[in-house]
């Protein structure tokens, strides 16, 4: 398998997730698109296993921790905004997000 094929697969997933994040009108959809970006990042780490497997393994763990942290923060904000505004549209946080 050529490395460029794996990198291109990763790039395709990341760019699709990017378009999704740009087009998102809902916070849940934003969360899903950001998680999709992490899936693309994990594909990009795969070629690193041919160079230094131990370091690549740490990168996978690091990516998973960052992904879980991002999930926690976004879920917290979704719950808070859901409680206050009764909906989770992106428009609700574009005005007066500081009042939270």
């Amino acid at each position, binding site marked *: 398998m050529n490395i460029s094929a794996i990198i291109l697969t990763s790039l395709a997933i990341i760019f699709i997730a990017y378009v*999704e994040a740009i087009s998102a009108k809902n916070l849940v959809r934003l969360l899903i698109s950001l998680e999709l970006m992490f*899936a693309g990042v994990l594909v990009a780490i795969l070629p690193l296993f041919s160079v230094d497997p131990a370091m690549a393994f740490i990168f996978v763990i690091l990516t998973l921790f960052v992904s879980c942290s991002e999930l926690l923060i976004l879920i917290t904000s979704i719950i808070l905004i859901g409680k206050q505004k009764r909906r989770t549209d992106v428009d609700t946080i574009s005005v007066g997000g500081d009042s939270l």
Partner: protein
Amino acid sequence: MSGDVIVLLAGILAILGATGVLFTRDNFYAALYLCLTMIFVSSMYAAYNIQQVVVLLTLIFVGVVGAVTIVVAATYETRLPREPNKVWAAFTALVFIIVASAYYSITTELKISGDFAKEFATVPTEYFLVLVVLFTLMILIVLSAIKLVKRVEL
């Protein structure tokens, strides 16, 4: 079926799953497509016999992150009339074509082999500090999230 064919197939299916997330209107189905993409990503690792990462990805990435996303999507389920932003999609496609043409020249063959049980045996000792810092940060984030949601002093 060789490992390379499985990786290629899993990659194509992962891209199709990501496209499904882009085009579905329902958040719940988008979360399901996300889990599908994650499973195909972990199957790419499985094709190269990196079992430790497959277990990590399946347990944490699919099992926890995917499942929680599905629960959140089901709780705050919305069906918005939506379509991808065409201007940004065109710009992103242009950037993808430029980067893809640059990467296409890379012809290095991916050779992943070896006993990963031995390779990863040094990880807990060599990267101990990194793991401790990550766990500490995660606990701090969880406590902050609980404090924000419950609005109680811990």
